[in-house]
C-alpha cells in the first residue's frame, strides 16, 4: 500500500510534523468530578517522537487523561501546553482521537471519511482516491456504502481509526483501539499505527494489551488512581517496573 499522505501537499493534511506541537506538557493538572479527584498530574512532559503507551488498571483515569490532553475536557486547575504554546482549535484540528467507544456519524462508511477530508479542505477531486486508500488500509473496501452504524464492533473500530488517520494528524490519541478486534485485525491495525508513527504522527495510546505496548511503544506512562506513577522507556518498564503498583500490574497480567 502506498501512503498517500506522503504525496499530498495540503497545509493540514501534508506530512505530519509533530515536533511543531511537541512536547505536550501538563502542569498542576487536576480534574474533579462528584467530589472525587480523578486526575492529579503535577508535572508531565510527553516528548519522545515514538509512541507513548498509557497503561493502568480500570478506572485509573486513562481515558480522562487523554481527553484532557486532547482538549475535550477543561481541567479544574493547571494547564496544558503544546510546544510551550496554549492549545487552540487549530492545534486540536491537527490532532485526532479514537474513542474507547467509537462515535460513528449516521452516514455511510465513506460518508464518515468524506466528512473529515472535507473538513480538512481536501479538494473534491482528490477525496475519492483518498477514501479508497483509507478503506483499503482499514480492510473495509467492500463496505464503503454500508451504514457506518451497522458495522460490527471491530469494523467500527477500524473505521474510527482510518477516519482519525484521514486528516494526517500530528498527534493521534487512541483509547484501546484494538479492544474488540480479532487477532488478525489487531495485527493489521498495529501495522497501521506503526506506519503512521513512522510517517511522523505522534501516537499516544491507551491499551490493556501488554504485548501490544511492548510491540508499538517507545515509552510507557503508568497511571494509577489518577496519578502518573511511572514514565519509563519500554525497554526498562517491563523488566523493572519501578513503582509497586506497576509491578503488581505487570505481574498480575503475567499470571493470567
Amino acid at each position: 500500500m502506498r501512503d498517500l499522505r506522503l504525496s499530498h501537499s495540503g497545509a493540514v493534511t501534508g506530512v505530519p510534523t509533530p515536533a511543531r506541537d511537541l512536547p505536550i506538557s501538563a502542569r498542576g493538572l487536576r480534574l474533579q468530578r462528584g467530589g472525587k479527584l480523578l486526575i492529579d498530574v503535577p508535572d508531565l512532559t510527553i516528548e519522545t517522537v515514538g509512541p507513548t503507551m498509557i497503561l493502568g488498571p480500570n478506572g485509573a483515569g486513562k481515558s480522562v487523561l487523554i481527553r484532557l490532553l486532547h482538549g475535550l475536557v477543561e481541567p479544574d486547575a493547571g494547564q496544558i501546553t503544546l510546544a510551550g504554546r496554549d492549545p487552540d482549535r487549530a492545534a486540536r484540528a491537527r490532532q485526532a482521537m479514537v474513542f474507547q467507544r467509537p462515535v460513528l456519524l449516521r452516514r455511510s462508511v465513506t460518508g464518515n471519511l468524506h466528512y473529515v477530508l472535507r473538513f480538512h479542505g481536501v479538494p473534491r477531486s482528490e477525496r475519492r482516491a483518498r477514501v479508497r486508500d483509507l478503506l483499503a488500509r482499514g480492510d473495509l473496501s467492500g463496505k464503503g456504502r454500508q451504514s457506518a452504524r451497522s458495522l460490527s464492533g471491530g469494523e467500527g473500530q477500524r473505521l474510527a481509526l482510518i477516519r482519525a488517520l484521514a486528516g494526517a494528524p500530528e498527534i493521534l490519541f487512541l483509547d484501546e483501539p484494538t479492544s474488540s478486534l480479532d487477532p488478525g485485525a489487531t495485527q493489521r491495525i498495529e501495522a497501521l499505527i506503526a506506519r503512521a508513527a513512522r510517517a511522523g504522527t505522534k501516537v499516544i495510546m491507551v491499551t490493556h494489551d501488554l504485548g501490544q505496548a511492548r510491540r508499538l511503544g517507545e515509552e510507557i506512562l503508568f497511571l494509577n488512581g489518577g496519578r502518573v506513577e511511572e514514565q519509563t522507556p519500554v525497554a526498562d518498564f517491563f523488566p523493572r517496573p519501578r513503582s509497586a503498583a506497576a509491578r503488581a500490574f505487570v505481574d498480575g497480567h503475567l499470571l493470567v
Partner: protein
Amino acid sequence: MQDFAASLAHAIGLILSGDAELWAIVLLSLRVSLSAVLIAAVIGMPLGAALAVARFPGRQALIVLLNALMGLPPVVVGLVVYMMLSNAGPLGVLQLLYTPAAMIIAQVVLVMPIIAALSRQVVETLDREYSEQLRSIGVSRLGSVPTLLWDGRFNLLTAVLAGFGRAIAEVGAVIIVGGNINHVTRVMTTTIALETSKGNLALALALGTILIFIAITVNAATSAAGGTARRLFHA
C-alpha cells in the same frame, strides 16, 4: 339519520366529481399551510439547533418559553396578528389583512415554535452523541449545526410534519386574519365552520373527509420518516 346519510352521499359525490369550489378551497388550504410550514421550518430548524448547541445565560429560560409557545392558542395568535396588520397597526401599510398572506403569517407564528422546539430536542439528543467526536475533529459548536441538522434530517422531518398538521387543522387564527372571504381566504377549516352553521352539511363533510385523509397521510409520512432513519442509519 337519513339526513346524515344523504349529506354523506352528497359529500362523496362532491369529492369524486372534482367539484371546482371544493378543490379551490382545498388548494388554498394547502398553499397557505405549506407556505407557512416552509417559512417556519427555514427559521425554526436553525433556531432550534442553535439553541441546542449554544451555551449562554438565559438559555434554559428560552427553552421553557419556546416549549410554552408550542401551545399558543390560535385565536390569540389571530388577534395579535390582526392588530399588527390592521390599518392602525404597525404593519398596516402593507394592507395584508384579509389576504392569504395574512393567514400565512398567522400560521408561521403558530407553527414556528413547534418546529423550533421539536428541532431543539432532536438536535440536542444527537449532539449529546456527536459533540465530543465533532469537537475532536475540530468543528466549532455553531459549526456543528449543519452536520447535526443533516444527520438528524429524518427526525427533523417529523417536527415539520407536526407543524403542518397543526397548521392545516387550525381555524381560530386564519378566520380572524383571513376573514373567511369566499374565493379569497376560505380554507377547509373555516369553510367547515361556516357551512355547518348554515346547515350545508354536504360541503362541510366533504372537506372534513379530505382533512382527515390529510391527517392520516401526515401520520403515515411521520412514521415512514422514522422508519427510513432507522433502516438507513441504524439510528
